[in-house]
């Protein structure tokens, strides 16, 4: 996973702490290896390679992730879509060129979860379609890694994968972890707020992670799979939920929704949030 990772854990001694964090890191590596779209031997690559051919059967863990993705797709009215990665072919954030509508129109037929035949455990992709687990893999890994530490006896600590944090338990003295929220218009590392998280997880989606500006307009990597264009409703949405994968899913889906819809959605999900809209207004609960 092309991001910074961190495991912090209170343990009786250094050897134990090292053992616990090694076990957690091994679990993160396992998931990265299994689902990285950059690896030839990953499940993701095997699925994408079979696109246009027959149905392939996936293992139980992958089936659970696909079920979860299907549920998110339904809950977000199609805004969350594992197949949207194909749009990156038109959007090159390094060179910062705005693609022509015709280029997007050519890609959109290859995007859309509803075009996939998913009958657990078999999956069939149409030719030239692709899926990737980038939208949920990091949070899933954080949850699994934290669960590994709890299972071996850890009570206090956290797993942080690129800003998506799953808390194992509060500090050893019972204090909540104070997790910083990046100022979406500040230099990297500048904080706009802190959220206290004693248990559970926090995840943030922001338009500042990858973007370019063209003629005064910001084009972020958060693409609406239904139009192919970046969404502009929010600068960032941070969510606190019991699981990192739930927090991440809520923040990603909220980013893709207009302000009122997003707030309604977050409230219905019964999560705490700090959301900053495109004009810099803050909403929190």
């Amino acid at each position: 996973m092309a991001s910074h990772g961190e495991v912090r854990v209170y343990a009786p001694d250094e050897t134990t702490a090292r053992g616990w964090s090694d076990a957690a890191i091994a679990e993160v590596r396992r998931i990265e290896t299994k689902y990285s779209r950059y690896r030839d031997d990953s499940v993701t690559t095997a699925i994408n390679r079979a696109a246009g051919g027959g149905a392939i059967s996936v293992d139980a863990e992958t089936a659970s992730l696909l079920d979860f993705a299907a549920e998110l797709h339904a809950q977000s009215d199609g805004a969350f879509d594992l197949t949207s990665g194909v749009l990156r072919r038109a959007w090159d954030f390094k060179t910062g060129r705005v693609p022509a509508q015709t280029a997007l129109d050519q890609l959109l037929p290859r995007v859309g979860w509803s075009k996939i035949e998913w009958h657990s455990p078999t999956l069939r992709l149409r030719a030239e379609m692709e899926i990737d687990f980038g939208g949920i893999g990091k949070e899933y890994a954080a949850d699994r890694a934290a669960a590994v530490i709890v299972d071996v006896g850890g009570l206090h600590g956290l797993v942080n994968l690129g800003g998506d944090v799953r808390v194992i338990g509060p500090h050893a003295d019972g204090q909540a972890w104070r997790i910083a929220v990046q100022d979406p218009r500040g230099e990297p590392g500048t904080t706009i707020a802190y959220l206290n998280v004693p248990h559970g997880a926090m995840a943030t989606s922001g338009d500042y992670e990858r973007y370019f500006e063209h003629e005064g307009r910001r084009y972020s990597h958060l693409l609406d799979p239904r139009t192919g264009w970046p969404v502009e409703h929010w600068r960032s949405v941070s969510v606190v939920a019991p699981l990192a994968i739930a927090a991440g899913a809520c923040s990603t889906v909220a980013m893709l929704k207009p302000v009122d819809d997003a707030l309604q959605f977050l409230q219905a999900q019964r999560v705490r949030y700090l959301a900053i809209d495109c004009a810099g207004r803050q909403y929190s609960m």
Partner: protein
Amino acid sequence: MPTPAKTGSILAAALALPGVVPSAQAQVTVPNATLIQFKYLYYKDYQENNGVTPGSSGDRMTVKSPALYLLAPISDSWVFEIGAVYDNITGASPYYHTVLSGASGEGVEDKRLAGDITVTKYFGRTAVSVRGAYSTEDDYRSIAGGFTLRHATPDQNTTFTIGIGYSSDDVFPQDGPVFTRTKNTLDGIAGITQVLSRNDVGQVNLYYANQSGYLTDPYKAIYGVDQRPDSRDQFALLVRWNHYFQSLNATLRSSYRYYHDDWEVDANTFTAEWGQELPEGFTLTPSARYTTQSAAFFYYDPVYDATLGAPFPPGYATNPNAFYTSDQRLSAFGGITLGVKLAKVFAEGWSVDGKAEYYEQRGDWRIGGDGSPGLQAFKAQLYQVGVNKKF
């Protein structure tokens, strides 16, 4: 038109992912989904006709029983449960030993209607439940109440349970002399559930019950000889261990129960279940149970008084006020139950299940002592189907 978001639906979907929460948890947590459950049970017991004892053959009791259960979280900390069951019981129960009432008269038909309500309030890691139950049939009425407290440690790895219950039952037989007698039961439970590792959960429960009042079977008393003490102290210890085999996607649930009462019934029961997860949301669970018990001190074998004949036990004439029973359930025996359950989970909270069980009880299957002689094997079949829906 955006789909209205279901409350907490994303977290609920996320919880279905494997390994995102520590695997084995003895949690006290508020249920977050409404559950409606319908079950239909068919049960019958019978004894083979061996042609030796006249009137001793064939089917005994048959029970057809639909049941409805609702669990509804009504806020973040209050949960309601309501259950209702209707039993239609037909057949014949033995007057004494294996001599049937149905052989010398008509079989019985009884209808039982029962309902219960449980209200649970959660205070963080502590839950307090209050339960009330009512049951009525032609010759029986029961009213019961109880209180349970559950508390989990901060790491949610250990849960303590204590509970107390009370029931008052009236029996008024419809046949023979008319009377009403009352039986009261006070019971208590104390237990601890402990997460032992990622894949192991252990549990130890202690039960105690005191029954007092009319504990005799009125029909056996009228047509046979049944005179029981008017109090019974019961004690049980249950030890349970569940182990999840990750590589096999299967759970082994095993338990041992020791039971003792002051009627000198001692029972040892061993149970094992193998819950095998299969593709397409199926779970197949074969199970086996063995129980062995000693007889109550006042159980008498089917050997009758030389002068009075059946159903009177030897010496009855000189000691008519002593305690006697011919109830097979209080004899010494070994019993084996074999079962299989198949469940399937569908989309949108639907699931269905079906199970079948076969039970056979014989005197000579007892281990750790002699079984009661002279009784035919007692057999039972149970079939149950269920439909569940979660919102």
